């Protein structure tokens, strides 16, 4: 059962569904971003993400997917519109509500894996004993417990990405924002990390917003694929991915998966066609 919405102009159509199904974790309303150079990078964009939902944002490169993520993270301010993030029971926990995984592992090369993962705790002055315990837990979650003393250069690309993921999880954030995190990895590593991420998501029930340019990845991981138009990025279509949970490796080769991929690709096609015509 799919539901291909055509947000585009009146993006509010689908947001009601989110409201009825429990709390909203992230809410964007009429958000635009114009860079200093005058380039209109994004919007206007309306987007609601439910608590505990896994949403994938796909779109042509340069469509503002990453900009949307940075706006949600508060790393940049919107030119207009509003960005709302819900906190645990209204409690304000700056720096804890959001975990961010960048496209590159973005690790401090001068610090060990342990220090890298513990950075968010150090910055919010969490006492050392508590921080140590949480770092250990986060490293266990990503399967890197025995590499705590290693330096980033000693790790493979996949392991570095796991460290980055552990660092995002160490503050126990409500929302996990991921900006094409596995784009630079080889396919087998990427598949493994996809499965591990799904397992983490099932266990921890974080809200995840996952930016990717891979149709296959977006369908495999998310409950809802949001297709964006070319720059300035707006919502183009929304495809709900409904399949038996938990998803396993078989889902990748199933007919339903292929059908979803076809739908997402079809929804993406106009954006790319527009580009070719330019």
């Amino acid at each position, binding site marked *: 059962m799919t539901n291909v919405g055509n947000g585009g102009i009146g993006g509010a159509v689908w947001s009601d569904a989110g409201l009825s199904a429990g709390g909203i974790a992230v809410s964007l309303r009429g958000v635009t971003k114009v860079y200093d150079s005058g380039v209109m990078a994004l919007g206007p964009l309306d987007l609601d993400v439910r608590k505990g939902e896994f949403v994938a944002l796909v779109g042509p490169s340069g469509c503002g997917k990453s900009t949307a993520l940075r706006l949600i993270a508060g*790393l940049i301010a919107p030119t207009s519109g509003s960005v709302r993030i819900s906190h645990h029971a209204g409690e304000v926990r700056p720096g804890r509500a959001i975990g*961010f995984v*960048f496209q590159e592992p*973005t690790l401090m090369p001068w610090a060990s894996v342990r220090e890298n993962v513990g950075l968010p705790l150090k910055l919010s002055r969490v006492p050392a004993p508590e921080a140590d315990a949480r770092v250990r837990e986060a490293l266990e979650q990503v399967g890197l417990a025995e590499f705590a003393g290693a*330096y980033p*250069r000693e790790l*493979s690309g996949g392991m570095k990405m*796991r460290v980055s993921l552990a660092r995002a999880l160490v503050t126990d954030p409500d929302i996990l924002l991921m900006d094409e995190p596995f784009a630079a990895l080889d396919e*087998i590593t990427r598949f493994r990390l996809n499965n591990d991420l799904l397992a983490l998501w099932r266990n921890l029930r974080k809200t995840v917003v996952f930016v990717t340019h891979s149709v296959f990845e977006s369908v495999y991981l998310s409950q809802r694929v949001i297709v964006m138009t070319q720059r300035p990025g707006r919502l183009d279509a929304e495809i709900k991915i409904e399949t038996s949970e938990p998803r396993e490796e078989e889902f990748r080769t199933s007919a339903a998966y292929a059908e979803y991929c076809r739908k997402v690709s079809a929804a993406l096609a106009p954006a790319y066609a527009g580009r070719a015509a330019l």
Partner: protein
Amino acid sequence: MSAPPDQSPPIPRPAAEGGALRAVRILLPILVLAAGLVTWELVVRLNNLPPYVLPGPILVFKTLISDWGVLSRSLLVTLLTTFEGFVAAAVGGIALALLFNQSKFLEYSLFPYAVILQVTPVIAVAPLLLIYLPQQTAVVVCAWIVAFFPVLSNTTLGLASVDRNLAGLFQLYGASRMQTLRYLKLPAALPHILGGLRIAGGLSLIGAVVAELAAGTAGAGSGLAYRINESGYRLNIPRMFAALLLLSLAGIVIYGVLALISHLALRRWHESALGKDT
């Protein structure tokens, strides 16, 4: 990459192949030195050159030993000046760069004057300094003027070349200015700072020598450069060579020590301190 590419161990170094190359790299310069010294000695002997025209290397070496009392005292004076100038340059350069990094206003106001100080030949400035400052102070100031700029410009460069995503991460976790400086900017700038210090070490020796030469005619100095001048007036050419040899050795030792410190500080993580095969 075989079975689990995600967890593959770090690549082992090929060991033996580097050994022969290293031996050649050490042996060749020594051979050149030996050949040069033999030629020099032969030229002096075969042409029966008197020592006040050109002393042979053996005589220079003998002078170094016989005049060690005078020369070593001068060496200490010069080294002390160099050290004081170097410390002043390191502290001043890094502190100024930190100030510039915190305040664009200060940077715009002062940076041009740092450049002017750097491009004005110190040998022309030294006599003026000697008029207005006590001699020992003037000599240290000279060493400082020559040596502080590479520290300043390298540190400025280092502080400005922080990974943007890492900076975003610090912002996301609400890092204070001091935290960002201490945990992000300074470690990231460390390789640049150490590079600047390595240059500054040699330059502060040059600054000290220039100031001693300028002061030497005023008569109160007793450093190695003063000794060279003095020996020149007395046509004690072997001692000139011996003093020059000591200056050169001092420069080599200063560079070696700073390079070693740099290597020790960076060996665990920075590209420059790692083997080419890792």
